[in-house]
């Protein structure tokens, strides 16, 4: 064993990307495969230094396709695994993210969002990959994505991402924007035994009786690791409970793909997290996530000082989308304001949930996030709806 601590308990002044890496290690991640890319490079750098200290493995891959494939392989060998990237790399990972969904591989993919499309603006912030996170790989599936808004949450939600991926055997995304990734703030890292770690369900049968994709009542099958005597087959082709391809029956497709969706949909109450601020008597609700939610929080406070009844619903979970929570609140407000650092992505989901309630969308592209005064202006407009 090494002398290095796995959990850096204490108070720190830390960068978001570094806090993400420390959260991963605290969660039990011991494998990272990646390809450096601004603004996520600091995660790779930190993991390259830290993983060998905790008997983990860091692999600098040839590209993002290989990175995602290696992450799947390591997870199937029984090791909590992750990669970190930004838009261009996230695009390259989509095919193997689909493979991870189909093979029900627990893993974490961090995307520190910069300005796109294509190579776009590497050093500038964006929230443009939100729909790609939901629908980026082909076929039907449900996914989990979390949106940190502070350096503390980069630590906390990375742990949460690992736990959710282990519980539901699904890739979980940490979707942060460049500002949160590169920001430095104070962080409190709890003691090692105060950190909640969840590990995947293990088979409760002998190897010869193991049916690798036979789900429990929660729709998630227990997972054996390769190399420990449970011999089985995992494939991206549609398969039955034994794991063998069933490419020509409707039943196999219906059962498998429906279950992949349902294991998230039917557990959404346990997954979805939002933070409600000053919404009890609010007439205008701002819905925001990531850095944008911090602009929104300042705007809501300023609106209150001016006598406008504003509140903020901060989305911590982006996928599955908190539509029930928004639908419920939408009935009680005059208008909903949605600021995003893109041309309109989450706002479509908000509109779907809000039904009749008027939605004011505030797009933002480029270097700076929304200034609070811009959101304040929209709150004032919303108050007269």
């Amino acid at each position, binding site marked *: 064993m090494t002398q290095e601590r796995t959990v850096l308990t204490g108070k720190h002044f830390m960068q978001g990307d570094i806090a993400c890496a420390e959260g991963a290690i605290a969660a039990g991640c011991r494998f990272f495969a990646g390809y450096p890319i*601004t603004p996520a490079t600091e995660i790779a750098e930190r993991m390259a230094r830290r993983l060998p200290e905790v008997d983990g493995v860091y692999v600098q891959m040839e590209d993002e396709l290989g990175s995602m494939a290696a992450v799947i392989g390591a997870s199937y060998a029984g090791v909590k695994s992750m990669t970190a990237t930004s838009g261009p790399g996230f695009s390259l990972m989509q095919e193997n993210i689909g493979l991870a969904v189909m093979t029900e591989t627990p893993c974490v993919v961090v995307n520190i969002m910069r300005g796109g499309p294509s190579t776009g603006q590497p050093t500038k912030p964006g929230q443009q990959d939100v729909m790609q996170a939901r629908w980026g790989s082909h076929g039907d599936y449900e996914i989990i994505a979390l949106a940190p808004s502070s350096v503390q949450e980069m630590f906390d939600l990375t742990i949460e991402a690992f736990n959710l991926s282990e519980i539901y055997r699904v890739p979980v995304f940490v979707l942060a924007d460049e*500002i949160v990734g590169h920001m430095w703030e*104070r962080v409190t890292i709890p003691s090692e035994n105060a950190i909640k770690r969840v590990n995947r369900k293990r088979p409760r049968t002998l190897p010869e009786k193991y049916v690798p994709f036979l789900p429990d009542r929660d729709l998630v099958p227990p997972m054996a690791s390769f190399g420990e005597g449970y011999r089985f087959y995992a494939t991206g082709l549609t398969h039955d409970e034994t794991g063998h391809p069933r490419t020509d029956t409707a039943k196999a497709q219906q059962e498998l793909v429906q279950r992949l969706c349902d294991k998230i949909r039917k557990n959404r109450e346990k997954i979805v997290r939002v933070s409600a601020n000053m919404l009890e008597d609010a007439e205008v609700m701002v819905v925001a996530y990531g850095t944008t939610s911090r602009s929104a*929080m*300042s705007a809501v406070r300023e609106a209150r000082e001016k006598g406008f009844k504003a509140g903020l619903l901060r989305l911590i979970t982006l996928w599955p989308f908190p539509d029930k929570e928004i639908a419920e609140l939408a009935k009680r407000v005059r208008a909903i304001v949605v600021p995003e650092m893109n041309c309109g992505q989450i706002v479509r989901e908000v509109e779907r949930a809000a039904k009749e309630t008027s939605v004011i969308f505030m797009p933002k592209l480029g270097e*700076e996030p929304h*200034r609070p005064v811009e959101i304040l202006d929209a709150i004032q407009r919303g108050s007269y709806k």
Partner: protein
Amino acid sequence: MSKRVEVRISGLGGQGVVLAGQILGRAAAHDGKYVVQTQSYGAEARGSAAKSEVIISDEKIGFPKVRKYDILVAMSQSALNNYMRDLKKNGILLADEDTVKEVPSVKARVLRVPATRISESEFKSKIFANVVMLGALTKKVEVVSEEAMKRAIIESVSLETKKENIKAFTEGMRLHEQET
């Protein structure tokens, strides 16, 4: 009333303005303040516009970017030209004496700091100018304590350059810069 100070450190990529902001932020954290440091730089390794922003407060910080700042550090003429307008009326400008030639007449308190010149004469290199500037900032503005700054510098720079950086900081602290 709670105290809140907003600082923008600006210059060109390669001058260490991002590191300077991180050191200042770290020092503020050591002093027990709430603090957020953010940064903005170009895709190029050197020469593009770069800035680093620090908000230091007694209260939790929402919006993490500076709006009207109390202190502007300008390490290049273009940085000064671009950012001077958002300096508060009674704010403080610290401008590098050699890399910033023209300072407009303003209400703000203006400190000309020969940071680049000192770095070159002491270390035969411009790369310590950012830390010389932090020394001047610490001495003249008292946003953070000297002890916290020294600790933050040691924690932020490589082992091989620790001695030079502490010397650069001390030189900055000692400056009797011209006030205009």
